[in-house]
């Protein structure tokens, strides 16, 4: 990773943090930038809902397979451990974690991943989620890269809290719940576009996102409009 790339990433993310921005699009950008800057193959953001369950909100590639792998971590995997301990989890080689996380390890390896990291997303003392990084080669990320990853995780947290100032725990709960629901709405809109255009659901995210860009609308708002029929993508 070059220093220029890194600077660009932070500037781009900071630029996005204006008053009226789309949280889902922003979190997607964070994961894309993580994959580029940290040189990992895939990245995902998971947030906790009020039931204490981790849910996927964004991924660097919106392939269903990656989303499902991320979501598998409702009960086991590096993200729940990171979330519960509040500490980063590093797995340099996924061939060593079969007994620790049998289902997650099997699925991750089937998806072609060899290493995995999880970094906590913290707001003050509270852990609200985790950033998940996947590599296709075995090996732990070096200390410097981990620090960068943590900085990106912090940017993601700030972005999440940007839409409304967080004063109380209650407002945070509202925010998280809204993010999780936006995620579901995007999945539903992907289905609508896939069916209309006779393409697969993985391609329809790209269409949705570029349509949102072109028409200068928020991704989650456009997704809602696609579902209720007031917009056609």
């Amino acid at each position, binding site marked *: 990773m070059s220093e220029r790339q890194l600077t660009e990433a932070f500037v781009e993310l900071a630029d996005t943090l204006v008053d009226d921005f789309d949280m889902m699009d922003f979190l997607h950008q964070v994961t894309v930038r993580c994959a580029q800057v940290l040189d990992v193959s895939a990245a995902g953001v998971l947030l906790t*809902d*009020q*039931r*204490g*369950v981790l*849910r*996927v909100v964004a991924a660097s590639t919106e392939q*269903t397979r990656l*989303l*499902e792998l991320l*979501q*598998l971590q*409702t*009960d086991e995997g590096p993200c729940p451990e990171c979330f519960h301990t509040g500490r980063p989890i590093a797995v340099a080689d996924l061939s060593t974690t079969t007994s620790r996380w049998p289902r997650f390890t099997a699925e991750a390896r089937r998806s072609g991943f060899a290493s995995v990291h999880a970094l906590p997303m913290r707001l003050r003392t509270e852990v609200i989620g985790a950033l998940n990084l996947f590599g296709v080669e075995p090996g732990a990320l070096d200390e410097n890269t981990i620090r960068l990853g943590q900085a990106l995780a912090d940017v993601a947290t700030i972005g999440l809290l940007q839409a409304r100032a967080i004063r*109380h*725990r*209650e*407002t945070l*709960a*509202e*925010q998280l*719940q*809204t993010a999780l*629901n*936006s995620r*579901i*709405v995007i*999945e*539903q*809109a*992907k*289905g*609508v*576009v*896939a*069916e*209309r255009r006779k393409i697969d*659901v993985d391609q329809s995210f790209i269409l949705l996102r570029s349509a949102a860009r072109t028409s200068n609308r928020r991704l989650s708002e456009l*997704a*809602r409009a696609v*579902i*209720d029929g007031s917009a056609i993508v």
Partner: protein
Amino acid sequence: MSSDRVVRVWAEVGRQAEGNPMSVAHVCAAAVVGVGVDGAGVTVMVSPAVRDSVHATDHVAGELEEWQLTFGEGPCVDAFAVGGPVLVVDLGSPDFLARWPAFTPAALNSGVGALFALPVQVGAIRLGVLDLYRVRPGPLSPAELADALAFADAAGTLLFDEAGIRPTTVAVAGQGDDPTAHHAQVYQATGMLLVQLGSSAEAAFARLRAYAYAHDRRLGDVARDVVERRLRLRPDPPGDDDDGR
């Protein structure tokens, strides 16, 4: 952890039902006991304009629904619009008077100190809102909030039930914690069915669930078949039983 909560919540709803078929009224009564609030009400909303108060546990809860219907503003209206919970820890604080100038004085006058509006929904499928109120201001604890959300889920399941789907209680309790219920493909399949059926997201999801129950299959498995184009559903003319019902 979360499955305990789901079981506990349904057990409380079952206790309130006393052997009768469970309804939204029982969810409201159970939420009052389970969350520790003074009253609860459920409003079914098709859109902010089209809505109906389904049940309220007491006079004050009924008035709350009434005020929001009358003024077209309030936490329940916002919760429905935003798709997330709206938690009013202290209705007397000036913020809320500014946010809902007509609703707030009326609700304060009814004796409400704190109000928690929880959307009853599955993704874009919005069914309505569960309103919980307390006379005394103060926040819900994290555990109380988690319980409140679980009661909102229970209300959603029963509203679907009233729409003609009759899952068994055991299946429902399992579904509430079934990880496949949160999988991307369930939502993607809902979107695809919406186009196939020419229906709303609500109806498409109801058909998906109905199909799974009727064929005794997991929701996630049926969704996968839809997404991978092994299963299509046709619009549902009366008497058509392509989904086995």
